[in-house]
């Protein structure tokens, strides 16, 4: 076991995968020589050569389009979109090409690609470096959507994503790269080296896509979260002294519905938390499923805590970010209902 940050964990996942399989290639903007603006690919070009890890032109549709062609050839591209906010020029390639190639060709061609992209706010990135576009992917049939919340999961899930036969959108909460940020921006973040889930095996292992994890067992209320919000939810439960069960979805598509339904059936109360905007957000889907499957067990209306339905502001970042105080108020609200 080694201590790793989330950056080191995703790098290790790519390293292990490239070592094991010559067909794995890594590319994107600033990804080659420099090793990526978040340094996730540092050292990979030096180790595997320029034809397996390289810089690309600033062209997301080019990055994803060429990755799709490489996958059709038989490679397994794991490409980086520098910020999730930059993926829109590639959206056509993602939604109408990558997602449908298996289906439309009846398996004659497939598209085993991974798109890694830093997501979410908390770094004063303003509206073009803070977005959480996961719902724009979960709405697309044919994609898988993964959001890890810690180094151990990030490595295991990224290896699973690279080995997956279908396209996987791998959203890395950038505020978690260096530590389990719980929303208390005024305090320094605990480094991953002091966290259990910063302990990461150096070799190969994978975590199946589609399995949620209960981060805190509890009986009073179920909190459903993923990515950064897992740590915010844990902090909120602790600070409010509420015996919440915190579910880390890890994979949004496919969704581990069984874990969600079991928990809400037990607690009878549910809070859905995400950083992305509210309207038509991923939480709407989860809450609809909770309503369908747990209606007669619910003691209170399900509450969502999310980013506001506005662009992500710059200076007012911490009034936008759904931090532990807002999650805590929602917990109190469902407990009182």
């Amino acid at each position, binding site marked *: 076991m080694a201590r790793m940050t989330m950056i080191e964990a995703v790098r290790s996942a790519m390293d292990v995968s490239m070592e094991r399989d010559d067909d794995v*290639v890594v590319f994107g903007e600033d990804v080659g020589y420099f090793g990526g603006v978040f340094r996730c690919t540092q050292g990979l070009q030096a180790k595997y050569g320029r*034809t*397996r890890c390289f810089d*690309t*032109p600033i*062209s997301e*549709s*080019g990055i994803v*389009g*060429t*990755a*799709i*062609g*490489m996958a*059709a*050839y*038989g*490679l397994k591209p794991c490409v980086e979109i520098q910020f999730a906010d930059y993926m829109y*020029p590639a959206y*056509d*390639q993602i939604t*109408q*090409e990558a997602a449908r*190639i*298996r*289906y*439309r*060709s*009846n*398996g*004659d*061609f*497939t598209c085993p690609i991974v798109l890694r992209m830093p997501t979410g706010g908390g770094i004063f990135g303003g509206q073009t470096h803070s977005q959480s576009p996961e719902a724009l992917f979960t709405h697309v*049939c*044919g994609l*898988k959507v993964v959001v890890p919340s810690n180094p151990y999961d990030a490595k295991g899930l990224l290896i699973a994503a690279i080995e997956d*036969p*279908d396209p996987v959108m791998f959203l890395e909460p950038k505020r978690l790269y260096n530590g389990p940020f719980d929303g208390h921006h005024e305090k320094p973040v605990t480094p991953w080296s002091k966290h259990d889930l910063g302990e990461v095996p150096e070799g190969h292992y994978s975590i199946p896509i*589609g399995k949620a994890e209960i981060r805190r067992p509890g009986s009073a209320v179920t909190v459903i979260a993923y990515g950064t919000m897992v740590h915010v939810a844990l902090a909120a439960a602790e600070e409010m002294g509420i015996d919440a069960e915190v579910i880390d979805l890890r994979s949004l*598509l*496919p*969704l581990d*519905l069984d874990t969600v339904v079991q928990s809400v059936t037990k607690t009878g109360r549910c809070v859905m938390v995400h950083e992305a905007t509210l309207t038509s957000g991923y939480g709407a889907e989860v809450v609809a499923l909770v309503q369908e499957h747990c209606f007669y067990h619910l003691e209170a209306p399900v509450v969502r805590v999310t980013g506001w339905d506005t662009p992500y502001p710059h200076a007012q970042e911490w009034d936008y970010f759904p931090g532990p105080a807002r999650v805590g108020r929602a917990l109190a609200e469902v407990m009182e209902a």
Partner: protein
Amino acid sequence: MGEKGRKNEGMTEFPQLSLHVPEPAVRPGDQPDFSNVKIAKAGVVPRPEVDVASEEIRDLAYSIIRVLNRDGDAVGPWAGLLSDEELLTGLRNMMKLRAFDARMLMAQRQGKTSFYMQHLGEEAVSCAFRKALRKGDMNFPTYRQAGLLIADDYPMVEMMNQIYSNESDPLRGRQLPIMYSSKEHGFFTISGNLATQYVQAVGWAMASAIKNDTRIAAAWIGDGSTAESDFHSALVFASTYKAPVILNIVNNQWAISTFQGIARGGSGTFAARGLGFGIPALRVDGNDYLAVYAVSSWAAERARRNLGPTLIEYVTYRVGAHSTSDDPSAYRPKTESEAWPLGDPVLRLKKHLIARGVWSEERHVQAEAEILDEVIQAQKQAEAHGTLHAGGKPSVRDIFEGVYAEMPAHIRRQRQKAGY
């Protein structure tokens, strides 16, 4: 007056601005006019070495490489590459594609399928190009390159099964008619979107180079969709990584109802777009089977020798409608195709073969009958497996299969809800 209409009172030394919106020379009711299409004489455009730098052959992006002259003779430095036998096969493939199209258009009118797209006038482009590729190479086609399949002897019955979305449809009823897929025949699944495949072809070619393979890729696009940003992305990536790819632009003059001038803008030709990327760019007579073969073979050799991409513009004319959902008489003169100065690809090759002494009017008529019979036989076989609204169909289960390698629980629940 609102902001939009307000004149800037301070700027008096310049006239008012006006927006330029290009228009074709003629519209329905006018006399067809192709005087703006400058056509080089057959045989006059030089054939450079394959390792030439793009800036040394700038002229080739503005001229038109032609081999067959008006008398049906093959002339100039691009001639002499194909044997009698190969040319006869080429003629046969083009005739087969034309007969196939005619039968399938009729089938669409009879309600046996929902939609069809024909190649009339453009048969030489895909039929001749296929012969410049080898087994294992990969095309990323648009919807008007079925000649790639015909010329590679892909079974017509399979194509028809797909068009009819019947019980034997290799794509299980999921795709619009003619959006074929055949990895075995080097034919990437057609999207139906435009331009996306162009950059994918570059990626496939990059992969082949990464793996030190010997196979090459071919990208296909129409004149209209060169305006898409994916076209630009493809040229950037092809240029940067010197990908072993042939970048084909089929300029058939019309993008549904929009004349080519709207996508081309101020650049003289579509081929010229390659020059800014340092990609050798050639323009070729797309209705000349010999010229198409010669130029695409030149480009294929460049790719195989790791010299990088080549951009080719095939100058041709879409004689038919864009698709069965289109009526071109609404936007262009009805007789325009007859005035098209590059003629008909089938008739031109036929004339050449007669001039070579290996073909005759009688044999042509006989071949037409044989080919029609072959197409009808295939059609009968396909129709025995059903047509869109009658006979054998793909299963409702096929809606739910194949979205992922392994069906996730939520799709399984939906399939069960649908009763399957």
